[in-house]
């Protein structure tokens, strides 16, 4: 097996006395749709926050394309080709839908203060590229029509899609989706699944955290289960579903409700 795109080895994150993630090992190959599941508080979002540089791991290593990215600043990690969405939607609320995506395209350009004021031809071309890429990303998530509306005027499902467009426009190698289907109705979930498959088909590796089991089992190629910060197992959806400890930790509880 060639080097994985993203590799976590012995990733441990503690907050004071609480161990949120405990010696997690994961290998995500290129062009994979990988899901990370587990009960509430299992540490899934914390894993994402560590990968994207928001939290500094207490121990362990994160490598991306063979390069150690542990403890790097989020903006550097983003520049390497890791994009993400947030569990509790973090859009630029008062800005237009288009501007949200154009900010996501920050990495495409180079223009600074001088470019902003003087606007040489190169910068104009760059702006065109940003606008085109933003239009494409909005088209993909079906929000091009609403490009001039304020981000916070969108419905919940639309906001989740806008976050995907904002992440995608930077042409990442890997897209981390933190509960993308949360708050969506069944039709929206169906559309979202198709959308994610479309994105994956373009060669973008997908790593998602999700609560909706049906969604995960239908979409993911491989699933990793986390409980209390520890990995219980990794496998195909079928393997995971038949794993006893998973049923105990997660599905069992779900069914008991």
């Amino acid at each position, binding site marked *: 097996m060639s080097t994985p795109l993203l590799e976590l080895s012995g990733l441990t994150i503690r907050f004071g006395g609480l161990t949120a993630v405990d010696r997690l090992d994961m290998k995500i190959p290129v062009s994979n749709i990988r899901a990370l599941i587990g009960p509430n508080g299992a540490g899934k979002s914390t894993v994402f926050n560590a990968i994207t*540089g928001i939290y500094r791991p207490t121990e362990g290593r994160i490598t991306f394309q063979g390069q150690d990215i542990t403890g790097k600043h989020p*903006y550097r990690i983003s520049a390497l080709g890791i994009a993400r969405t947030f569990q509790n939607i*973090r859009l630029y609320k008062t800005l237009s839908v288009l501007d949200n995506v154009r900010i996501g395209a920050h990495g495409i350009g180079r223009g600074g203060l001088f470019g902003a004021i003087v606007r040489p031809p190169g910068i104009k071309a760059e702006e065109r590229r940003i606008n085109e890429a933003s239009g494409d990303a909005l088209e993909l998530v079906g929000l091009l029509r609403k490009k001039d509306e304020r981000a916070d005027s969108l419905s919940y499902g639309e906001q989740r899609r806008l976050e995907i467009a904002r992440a995608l426009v930077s042409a990442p190698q890997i897209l981390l989706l933190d509960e993308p289907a949360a708050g969506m109705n069944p039709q929206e979930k169906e559309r979202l699944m198709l959308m994610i498959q479309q994105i994956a088909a373009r060669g973008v590796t997908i790593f998602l955290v999700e609560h909706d089991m049906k969604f995960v089992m239908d979409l993911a190629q491989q699933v990793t289960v986390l409980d209390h910060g520890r990995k219980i197992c990794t496998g195909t959806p079928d393997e995971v579903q038949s794993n006893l400890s998973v049923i105990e930790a997660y599905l069992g509880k779900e069914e008991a409700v």
Partner: protein
Amino acid sequence: MEELLRQYMNLYYIQVLTLICIMMIAALGLHLITGVTGQLSFGHAAFVGIGAYAAALSNIHWGLPFLICVLLGGLAAALAGVLVGFPSMRLTGDYLGIATLGFAEIVRVILMNMDITGGARGLAGIPRETTLVLAFVLAAVAIWTMYRIQDSRFGRALVAIREDDIAAECNGINGLWYKVSAFAIGSFFAGVAGGLYAHFLQYLNPSGFGFAKSFEILTFVVLGGLGSIPGTVLGTTILTLLPEVLRFSAEYRMMMYGLLMVIMMIFRPRGLLGGVDLLPLLKRMLYSLRKKQTPLNGDGNGRSV
């Protein structure tokens, strides 16, 4: 040019208008820091002061051309702005505001104690160079520059930090770099305004750049509508004119000024132009004008605004 103006305009009006233009440049600087980038600054007057002293001193001691002095004033303030921008790495919100206030007070006390600045006696003998025309042109350039900055990759990064700094970082934006840049550019504007101010008043005193002045500029920016360029222009104009208009009430004028600040905030908490988007508003007005001219079709769908 100035001579020509004087034939048509009373000297007093010329002075008030010049002051408005100067303050507008300073206020636009704070608009970039606080309104666009969302970094609270309670010490903007210190940058105006640094610019004013740097410009005045390079004129008095080195005899440099006036515009070079103003530019130096801007650069000196920008340098100080970089210094103040760095704490924004660790401090956010009110805490950053308080730190900038502390910095500004320290600057004031230092200016008060330096020999070269004339200390508390102030610095006199600055030649009068600032004209209304120049101040007006520079204010216009400042407004134009601000529009250009805001409509660019650079400006979008600043706004992203204001809206959500964590999301911005995850979008590849180096928050510290952009925050420090915003402080530097905003302070540059303040410094240029200071340079003009020095060559307008011809006398400087550190007490003129204390926190009261900082809050005055902050009020310009907030009262017009935080984050809006027309808001900043309007806020600066109204609040600079206000004390002049209230001059009839002599000693009660600042009392009324304070009172009006409270009243305006209560009735327009988001600023006079807060939440008003000028372009669509203009379009609507034009639309309704056209509507009035053409007779109604009688289908009952004609929307009046």
